[in-house]
């Protein structure tokens, strides 16, 4: 086992912040690891969900928010469904991502954040998704310029990706929702 960082003092304020945001009681976790055992993408995370909870318990805010785990989480909800202590870990992952974004902290998985931001910017403008616009924006910015072109073309040919965006009538209302949601 690697023995790495040293915790000198526990700061419960981060725990409280995440608890409050996610509506969970992270201190109830007794670290049975069932979440990590069932997580489909834990193999790709720097810290499994269990470790993320542990680091929150320790108050290691920077490490948690800088982890790849919080962006790799696929929100599949397996962890929370099987957790014996009724901790909905997916909600915690949401909260951690939200804090990272709000505080403008650097992220390990840049593209995931980029994707979400672009996605929402389109919804804010149109009220709905427009896949062609999303891909046009995402591919160059994510430096994934060509990987999705063949499949994209195939879909356009099959009429599965409309080329022109559709703006809903109530797009102003949607914009207002965005603004009021902060």
């Amino acid at each position: 086992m690697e023995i790495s960082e040293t915790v000198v003092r526990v700061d419960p304020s981060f725990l409280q912040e995440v608890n409050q945001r996610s509506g969970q009681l992270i201190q109830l976790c007794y670290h049975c690891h069932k979440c990590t055992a069932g997580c489909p993408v834990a193999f790709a995370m720097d810290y499994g969900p269990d470790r993320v909870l542990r680091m929150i318990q320790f108050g290691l805010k920077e490490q948690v928010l800088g982890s790849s785990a919080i962006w790799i989480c696929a929100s599949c909800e397996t962890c929370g469904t099987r957790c014996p202590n009724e901790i909905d870990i997916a909600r915690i992952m949401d909260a951690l991502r939200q804090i990272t974004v709000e505080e403008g902290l650097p992220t390990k998985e840049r593209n995931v954040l980029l994707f979400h931001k672009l996605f929402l910017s389109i919804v804010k403008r149109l009220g709905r998704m427009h896949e062609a616009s999303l891909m046009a924006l995402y591919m160059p910015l994510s430096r994934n310029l060509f990987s999705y072109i063949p499949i994209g073309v195939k879909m356009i040919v099959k009429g599965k990706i409309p080329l022109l965006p559709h703006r809903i009538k109530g797009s102003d209302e949607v914009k207002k929702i965005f603004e009021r949601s902060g």
Partner: protein
Amino acid sequence: MRVSYYPGCSLHATAVEYDLSIRAVLQRLGVELTEVPDWNCCGASSAHSLNETLALALPARNLALAQEEGGDLVVPCAGCFSRLKMAEKVLREDPPKGGKIEKVVGFKYKGGFEVRSPLDLIGNLIGLERLHNMIQRPLSGLRLVAYYGCVLVRPPEVVQFEDPENPQLLNRLLQTLGAEPLEWSYATDCCGGNLALTRGDLAKILVTKLVSKAREAGAQAMATVCPLCHMNLEMRQEEMPLFYFTELMGLALGIEESKKWWGKHLIDPRPLLRTLGLTD
């Protein structure tokens, strides 16, 4: 029966065959669909990753519109379904948070209607017996696995579906259609759909595993309920055809226009259907 209908963005684009088949099948089963007018995107996984209020308010606007229509709200996309269910739960059970959402959207949640998946509507409200009686062309010989994915069944306290570890409704429905649903242990394992565009490498690993497990179980195809899973599974492999379950229903119910759906697939299912004599 009259219900309102929230197709969601995918069904107007990448999952157009899901949209077409649902409309056709429900019409055949005597369900009148009214599309929620001027619906908006539910925010999908992006909103809940970045902004909780937004993640509840975007679906809540659709609930507000559906409330005016009356009748239960059918949401075929599992992703949208879970977001709308989540908003519904907050509006029903969490007055402080719900009140905030109502303010953001500018409406008052009155309730009196349920957000339902089409699987729930067909399997539980219409009933498989009724469906059975209407089958014209049993899908004999079609061996497939039912794939529920994640968010139709989880988190259980939000979606209020069956046992999230061992759901059976889709299997029973496929059986009703005359097909042969196979036992496998991956029916609710994640395909990585949320990472499809951002961490394609991970999605590829998960999809490959699912497809190989389905093949090991002896499946010729997979039946899906979610456009995000469906697309993710279709774009990362070329051997295992996929069907929205409503497409299979259309076929079994003898709906003529089902033929038009197959051309929309990225993996052409017609060779398989031909070997089974299910299409020309």
